[in-house]
């Protein structure tokens, strides 16, 4: 066997070892990496199922004025069940059709409140302002207040939380 032959064989073995090591290393990395990514993202990807939440009697809603309904709901986050306050403004113009609006500002999530004197919703964080139907009338909020699907059963108002 000539010297160059032997060298060619050596290089062949070297390359084979290199490829085997890279291959096995890649497999091990994937075996850890893929479960790790799924594990970290898991809770973020969980879909919440819409549920009907009971707000109270519709008779409380005054015509033409957004009325605040507050209720406490239980939420499960991780391994902890917490009581969370849930607030909805309900508006009716005709006593038959109800609009249920979230009190979460569409800018960056502060809570808006109804200011009767000014006939509008006001957000204290960056002076966002909304009309009584939720449309933006001033400040940085990019879109109207979010609305919930709602229904009335036996004079009791329900909204669906997504």
């Amino acid at each position, binding site marked *: 066997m000539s010297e160059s032959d032997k060298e060619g064989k050596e290089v062949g073995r070297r390359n084979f070892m290199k490829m085997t090591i890279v291959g096995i290393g890649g497999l091990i990395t994937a075996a*850890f990496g893929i*479960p*790790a990514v*799924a*594990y*970290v993202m*898991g*809770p973020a990807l969980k879909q919440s199922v819409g549920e009907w939440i009971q707000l109270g009697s519709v008779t409380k809603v005054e015509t033409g004025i957004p009325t605040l309904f507050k209720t406490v709901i239980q939420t499960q986050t*991780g*391994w*902890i069940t917490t009581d969370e306050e849930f607030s909805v403004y309900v508006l009716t113009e005709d006593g038959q059709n109800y609009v249920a609006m979230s009190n979460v500002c569409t800018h960056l999530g502060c809570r808006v409140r109804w200011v009767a004197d000014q006939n509008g919703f006001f957000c204290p964080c960056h002076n966002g302002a909304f009309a009584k139907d939720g449309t933006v009338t001033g400040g940085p909020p990019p879109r109207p207040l979010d609305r919930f699907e709602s229904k009335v059963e036996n004079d009791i108002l329900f909204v669906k939380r997504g």
Partner: protein
Amino acid sequence: MLANLGDWLNDRFGWRGIWEAIFLRKVPHVNWFYTLGSASLFVAINQAITGILLTLYYVPTPDHAYDSVVYITTQLPFGWLIRGLHHWGASAMVVLVVLHLLRVFFYGAYKFPREATWMTGVILLIVVIGFGFTGYLLPWDQRAYWATTVGTRIAGVAPYVGDFLLKIARGGPELSAVTLARFFGTHIWVLPTTLALLVVIHLYLVIRVGISAVPAKDE
């Protein structure tokens, strides 16, 4: 392109020299028992990765520890796998490190000039056992609670200083939230930093001195 980048970096960092010293060093013709140290290192890396992932959800307080562990194993994607790897890896680690020690012992590889390698190894073994002891409490279930009650009581029977040691280990006379918190802190900060430091010294010595050959029959 990649080769150029490698050259450019090598001109400033000189990493090829380090690479050659670690992976292209001369080793005697050895056998599979010489892989036990590397196997220990592999499992140690497994413990580090899965352990870090567990801390993303685990909470070390009596109120939440158990529930968070149940959440990890039953609710999270691959949570059972991550915890399982960490759990079984812990046992594998002790077994591998002890086998590695036995290999070194029976081949006489602890002799001059490798005494310091052996001594760092002894501390590594103690650290590995420390990991097992502190980690066992963390799920905060019945088994964990009573195992640690017993384990710390063992420290308590030492003459004169026993009671003192027991209180230090528990952070008071009884197992409590304080015990859980200090076991957790030890398990994820004190021991890992110690282990990392010692492994670096250990491997530096292995590379500097070179690996011992398999002893001949009449040695």
